[in-house]
Structures are given as C-alpha cells and as structure tokens.
C-alpha cells in the first residue's frame, strides 16, 4: 500500500478483553482498508450459515484467520490511512515476556491508543500499559473509553473512568488536560469515523479525527550521535566493520568517534547501507561502517559509538523509575538481575529503594521501602556490575529505557532518570 502521507507507528494497548483487537479491526474497516468485496463475501457467507444479521466480530475472526496464513515481512503489521497519516499498527501482545522485545527491538511507536472498557474501568493491565508506554517513549496518547454500548452510553460512567485515568496519566507524566478521551464502541462503530446519536452529550472528535491531531515525530538529528553496536566484523581487505542502527544524531564520513565503555577512539572511513556507500547515516538507518584505528577485539556488542567531543555516558550508578511486572517474591536491596538496554545486557545491583509510588494518587506511597513487588512502581538507585552506557531518558530517550530480566522472564521495565557518570578520561 504505497502512500505519500507521513508514516506513524501506532501502538494499541490496554487490558485484555477491553476490545483492542476489535478496535484495530474497526479502524481498518472504517478506513476502507478491508476491501468492500471481502466484507460482502463474508456477509453472504454469514447469511448462508443462518447467522442472519451481519456480525462485525465474526467478520473480524475470519479476517484474522486469513491474515495468519499470509503473514509476510512487509505485511506483518496491519495498516490503515487517515486523511493525514499512514499508520502501521503494533497490536501489543498480552504476555509480559514480549515487553523486553518491545523495548530493545526496532519498532518504536510514535503514538498509542489506550483502550479501556467503560464497564471495567482502570484494570491492572491498563495501569501497566500506561507505565510501559511512557517507558517506551510514547509521548502521544489517545484514550478510547470503549464498550460504551455495555454501559448504555452513560455519560456519568464515562466521566468516572476518565477521572480515574486522568489520575493515572498524571502520575506517569502524561498531561490529562491535553489528552483526548473518546467514548467508543468498537463493536457498534460508535465515534470511530462518525459521531453517534447515542452519545449526543459528547462534543469532542471521533477516534479517526483524533488520530489526525497527532504530531509527526521529528527525527532526533540535532542530538549527539548514538549508535549502539549490534555486532563487530573483521572483513578482509577492509578492516573492522561494526554494525548497528543510528538511534540519534548523524554519523558522517571522516568523523572522529569514541566507543564507550570500551573507551576506544577511531575515525569513520566509510559508511554503507543496503550495500551502497553513503556520506552520512541518519536516525533509523541500519548501517555497517569501517573505522580506522579500531581492531575487531577492541569493541563489542553493547558498546555505543558517539562523537569524540560528546561521547556516550558511562554510568557509575543511575536512578531509575521502574514498574515491576512479575516477580515471584519481592525485590530488595542487593538484588542483581540483568538489565537489557539498547544492545547491552548488564547485571546491575539495586543499591537503594528510594520511593514506592501510589498508582492511584501519583504520590509517594512509602519512602525507602524495604521491598517492592509485582504491580509496584518505584524509584530506585542502581549500580552496574561492569561499565555500561545508559543515558537520561529526558535527553536521549532511545538509550534511557530498559527491561529487567531474571531467570528467563521479564520482571520489570523502566527508564533512567538520573546518572552519576563515570569519568572515563
């Protein structure tokens, strides 16, 4: 589906059973992404099977089966167009083990729709997903208060859920006053592309109109270069070739670069992408580059390449805001799990539990708690067991978030909010 419109990665998040998948299906349907003849085919099939009425959910089930048989690298993501944008959808899996892949993987969502069922309101996973989207660096959030049909399109219930959500958003750092809350029913098609008479009390935009209020993300080209190393090759006739993706800034041919924490300096001789030499590499580019003055053994995966005059920050200790997703018992000072941050995996010790936060009020629930457990959000002080690069999420969000893993599962996610840098020179 070629399109000249600006592209946006859209995450759809929310508690299981609150209607995420139906919402994605409805968006595709209302934007004409599901061709009319396919819908018509299913309608006829439904009638012949004696289903009588046209059932949206049934159509969606059939489309899902068809999609699963034909997933390709190009169309793994669902896509749809609005008047302004071309969206690809990341429909977030329910299982927490995928969180690590969402943090360290490539697909950075530019915006998210949080789906919350009006009947249930804020649930455990709603809370978790709001924290996670903040941690993942998603700054633009649209709230769909869904299943309004199940609460008889009651304005009072809508306002109640909106109030609870506002408290939650505020705490995590979103601005509820600037956030759109839309009463929807994905199943009935309420306030998706057209305003509904059922919610005559609602004066705001439809969901599709709301999507067009999003701002196109700017490429972080004005920031210092940060390129986390994925792998290092030694290629005959060429020399040392590190491979990685530019997260921020621009890499230019001839540039003096420093790799941290290896603390090695070199000069970029040439850069290649898609087997062609390029004069400079921009954020998002997957490149290989040849560096003069660096041997293959000098640097490795997990090192970060930056300009020699603004090298990547190596942390002696850092302060982090985390949310504990699943932990069999409790996290206490001394606990040393593995932090997955950009391409590094480094064991880090919890040296101080500073604050436990109350997800309902946004206030500090407890100063210096003795432990934290599943469902808790907290501010903690962490010390890497060996040098690692991490950046403050406020300055370089792409290098400031991490997943915490222990014994084969993802136990927490977080972001770095303060650093005690190690002097490397």
């Amino acid at each position, binding site marked *: 589906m070629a399109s000249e419109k600006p592209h946006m990665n859209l995450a759809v998040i929310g508690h299981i059973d609150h209607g995420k998948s139906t919402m994605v299906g409805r968006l595709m349907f209302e934007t004409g992404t599901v061709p009319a003849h396919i819908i018509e085919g299913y309608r006829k099939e439904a009638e012949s099977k004696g289903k009588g009425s046209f059932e949206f959910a049934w159509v969606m089930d059939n489309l899902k089966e068809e999609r699963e048989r034909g*997933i390709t690298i190009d169309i793994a993501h669902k896509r749809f167009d609005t008047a302004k944008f071309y969206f690809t959808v990341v429909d977030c899996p329910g299982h927490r083990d995928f969180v690590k892949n969402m943090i360290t*993987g490539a697909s950075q969502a530019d915006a998210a729709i949080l789906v919350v069922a009006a009947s249930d309101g804020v649930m455990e996973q709603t809370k978790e997903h709001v924290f996670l989207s903040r941690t993942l660096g998603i700054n633009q959030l649209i709230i769909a208060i869904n299943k309004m049909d199940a609460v008889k399109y009651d304005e009072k219930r809508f306002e109640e859920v909106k109030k609870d959500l506002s408290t939650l958003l505020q705490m995590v750092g979103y601005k509820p006053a600037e956030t759109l809350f839309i009463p929807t029913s994905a199943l009935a098609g309420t306030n998706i592309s057209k305003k509904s008479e059922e919610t005559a009390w609602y004066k705001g935009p439809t969901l599709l109109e709301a999507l067009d209020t999003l701002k196109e993300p700017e490429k972080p080209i004005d920031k210092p270069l940060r390129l986390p190393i994925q792998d290092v090759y030694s*290629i005959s006739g060429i020399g040392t070739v590190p491979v990685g993706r530019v997260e921020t800034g621009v890499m230019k041919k001839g540039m003096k670069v420093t790799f941290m924490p290896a603390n090695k300096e070199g000069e970029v001789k040439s850069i290649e992408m898609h087997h062609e030499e390029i004069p400079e590499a921009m954020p998002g580019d997957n490149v290989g580059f040849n560096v003069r003055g660096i041997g293959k053994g000098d640097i490795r995966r997990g090192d970060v390449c930056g300009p020699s005059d603004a090298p990547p920050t190596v942390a002696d200790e850092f302060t982090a805001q985390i949310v504990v997703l699943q932990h069999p018992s409790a996290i206490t000072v001394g606990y040393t799990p593995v932090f997955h941050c950009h391409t590094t995996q480094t064991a880090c010790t919890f040296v101080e539990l500073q604050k436990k936060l109350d997800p309902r009020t946004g206030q500090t629930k407890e100063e210096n708690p003795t432990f934290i457990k599943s469902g808790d959000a907290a501010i903690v002080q962490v010390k890497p067991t060996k040098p690692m690069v991490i950046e403050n999420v406020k300055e370089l969000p792409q290098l400031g978030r991490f997943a915490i893993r222990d014994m084969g*599962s993802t136990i927490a996610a977080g972001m770095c909010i303060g650093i005690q840098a190690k002097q490397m020179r």
Partner: protein
Amino acid sequence: MGSVALILKIMPESPEVDLNDLVGKIKEKVAGVQDVREEPIGFGLKALKVAVVVDDAGGASDAVEEAINSIDGVERAEIVELTLT
C-alpha cells in the same frame, strides 16, 4: 490465546556464510516460519529477515531466538518487530 507475528533479524558470522543454507536450517529448527528475505547491509554483509508466528505466551519469543542463535553460521538472531496478528 492470540498469536504474535515476530520479525527477526539474523546476522551471519561472516559475509562468506551461505544464506540459502542458513534458511534451510532455520526452517528445520523453527516452526511457524512464514517469510524470509535477504537484507543487504554493507561491505558484503547481508542480514536475513524472517517472519515467524508464535503463541502469545511466556517464553515464546526467547525460544525462537535461542533456536536460531544455536545454528552454525549465525552470529546473532534478534527480534526487531512484533505485533498480535
């Protein structure tokens, strides 16, 4: 339970590794491979992109990464994108 589409990026140990051979080994070891494509990087290096569908369950993503990482000739396999199908 839902299904999750994973896109993995697989780097060979060197530009000399036969990628067709690698694809064969991946398909032998991993169920649910739906699409494979070569993606040129630079300096003769090519990555393989592979689309795999797994259950939305604990450990599913690790299992695929581990299976591919254990194949001879693979430098590294990592999940670069994922979504519910």
